[in-house]
């Protein structure tokens, strides 16, 4: 207790000198809190957008589909989709399914033809994902007729217009060619893989595409959306067992959305660099401040040593001062950051422009995860401990008698 008492009183006595260290640690902690907090929120929203708008939590395929090249894709279809759908939807942890059948070919208007890549989907399911958002016109209607929503750029290149018909020529699984007319109900911007593909994008209703390709009742991809509060980790075992039982294979959303993990890694790297810079600056400031304080207290240290205080006990006093500084600085930094977070919250959040996957801008708040902040506390304490060790080693270089002669 006496060591803590000495440390506290010395810190209070040298408050002016210690204010710089406290301010530095506080600013460092505030910066880390705000940066981490906004990144965490941004990636949480990004992840939810990737899952709910694009990939679902899981995608199921006929076994061998993911290894097959595009020419053989039609040989790996889930032929009994309605049976699979019925079996899957018995699980209350599933929200909805979005079956898809991909195709490619040529879409022709009156004068021009363009290469197209697209898929057929169930309009109600797709309407709940990103492809349900149209730029012009309307989304697909569930009236059983052959319809399509084209990329805005694809529509422009083909010379067609909304309400017109696109004749689609595609390859069949049997190797022959097939064609059908699709009524254009609307257009969209972006297509999930960058604007480059907007010039060949087409989404149509599933039954019409099945009919076009001559594979009624078949799909190549089943996108599984889990109910609110259920994560991919929670459900992966059940999905794996289901796939094994029905001759299917699956991919998790994070295996498909590699860009998400890459983006996260870039931001995490930035966070590590920022943390390292702040900690290095902190360690130098702590060493400098405490070292100057201890140099002016060498006679006091020497007196303590003369009356029997061991080096370990002196190191403990220095460590206490250093830890009190870092914990106080971190706590103050978190409080300042909490105030900033509150201001961001009441002012409606930080505005972000639309990402490549979304057409709408969005807002994030500053909400770091508690274990991350706890880890920063621990890091600052470790840095302080290292700083106090450096000071102790420097202080012990002088002999007791040498320090007493400085009187």
């Amino acid at each position, binding site marked *: 207790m*006496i060591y803590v008492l000495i440390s506290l009183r010395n810190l209070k006595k040298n408050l002016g000198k210690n204010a710089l260290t406290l301010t530095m640690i506080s600013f460092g902690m505030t910066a880390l809190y705000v940066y981490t907090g906004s990144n965490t929120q941004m990636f949480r929203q990004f992840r939810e957008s990737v899952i709910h708008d694009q990939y679902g939590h899981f995608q199921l395929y006929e076994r061998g589909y993911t290894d097959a090249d595009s020419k053989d894709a039609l040989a790996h279809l889930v032929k009994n989709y309605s049976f699979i759908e019925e079996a899957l939807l018995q699980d209350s942890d599933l929200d909805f399914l979005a079956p898809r059948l991909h195709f490619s070919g040529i879409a022709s208007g009156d004068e021009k033809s363009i290469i197209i890549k697209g898929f057929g989907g169930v309009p109600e399911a797709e309407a709940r994902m990103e492809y349900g958002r149209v730029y012009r016109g309307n989304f697909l209607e569930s009236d059983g007729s052959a319809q399509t929503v084209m990329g805005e750029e694809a529509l422009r290149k083909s010379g067609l217009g909304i309400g017109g018909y696109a004749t689609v020529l595609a390859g069949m699984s049997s190797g022959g060619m097939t064609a059908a007319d699709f009524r254009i109900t609307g257009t969209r911007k972006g297509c999930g893989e960058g604007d480059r593909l907007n010039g060949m994008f087409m989404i149509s209703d599933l039954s019409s595409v099945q009919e076009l390709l001559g594979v009624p009742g078949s799909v190549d991809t089943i996108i599984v959306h889990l109910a609110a509060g259920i994560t991919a980790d929670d459900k992966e075992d059940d999905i794996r067992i289901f796939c094994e039982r029905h001759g299917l294979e699956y991919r998790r959303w994070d295996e498909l959305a590699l860009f998400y993990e890459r983006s996260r890694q870039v931001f995490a790297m930035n966070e590590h660099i920022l943390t390292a810079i702040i900690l290095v600056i902190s360690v130098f400031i702590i060493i400098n401040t405490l070292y100057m304080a201890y140099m002016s207290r060498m*006679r*006091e240290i020497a007196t303590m*040593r003369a009356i029997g205080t061991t*080096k370990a006990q002196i190191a403990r006093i220095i460590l206490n001062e250093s830890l009190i500084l870092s914990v106080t600085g971190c706590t103050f930094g978190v409080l300042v950051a909490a105030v900033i977070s509150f201001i961001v919250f009441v002012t409606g959040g930080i505005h972000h422009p639309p990402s490549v996957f979304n057409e709408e801008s969005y807002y994030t708040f500053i909400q770091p995860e508690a274990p991350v902040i706890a880890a920063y506390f621990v890091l600052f304490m470790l840095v302080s401990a290292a700083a106090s060790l450096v000071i102790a080693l420097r202080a012990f270089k002088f002999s007791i*008698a040498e320090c007493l002669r400085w009187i």
Partner: protein
Amino acid sequence: MLISLRNIHKTYLLDKVAIQAVRDVCLDIDAGDFICLMGPSGSGKSTILHILGCIEHPSSGNVFIRGENTRTMRDAALSRFRNRHIGFIFQSFNLIPVLNVRENVEFPLVIRGGKFDRDHVESVIRSVGLSDCMAHRPDELSGGQRQRVAIARALVTRPDIILADEPTANLDSKTGGRIIDLLLALNRESGTTFIFSTHNETLSRYARRTIRILDGEIYEAAGAGR
């Protein structure tokens, strides 16, 4: 024999010049003695006190205290040895400025670890006449009072030896005389060995033995031969 110095030499390096502070000092001190180290500034009396107090090792020679050769002790063991057997009184009092009188006096017992007798601490503070100032910080005390706190701190562990480096140098002559009287009284009551250094001839008269030092050598030891 409580203390025995054998052929002590101490050499410092000042820049690249070797300064011989102590030359071939041999000294035996009995328990309960009251000794004055007398000599001008720079004569080496502080260095001899530091060597006696185990806060500085001699360049050569051996120091035996209670029969133990302190040169062979490791740092932690030497710290514990100082804490148990040696008390220090410094010229500038050297109190811990952030602790009050009571905390300063009990500090040597606190660092020892374990429980200690608080009544004993209070009785030591009373014995130096500071019972009204227990909660005062050093900067709230006069020079004489500070030195009394330093004396109480040195006494509180009931050490075998108390070393005082010019204990009255920063005090007026009246207060200095009272401090020496106090040390003499404590020496008589507790039988603790006192060794103090001074260059004041008047103070040396209080001592039972006066050891005169010049240029690092003992040249006269009144009351006992070298």
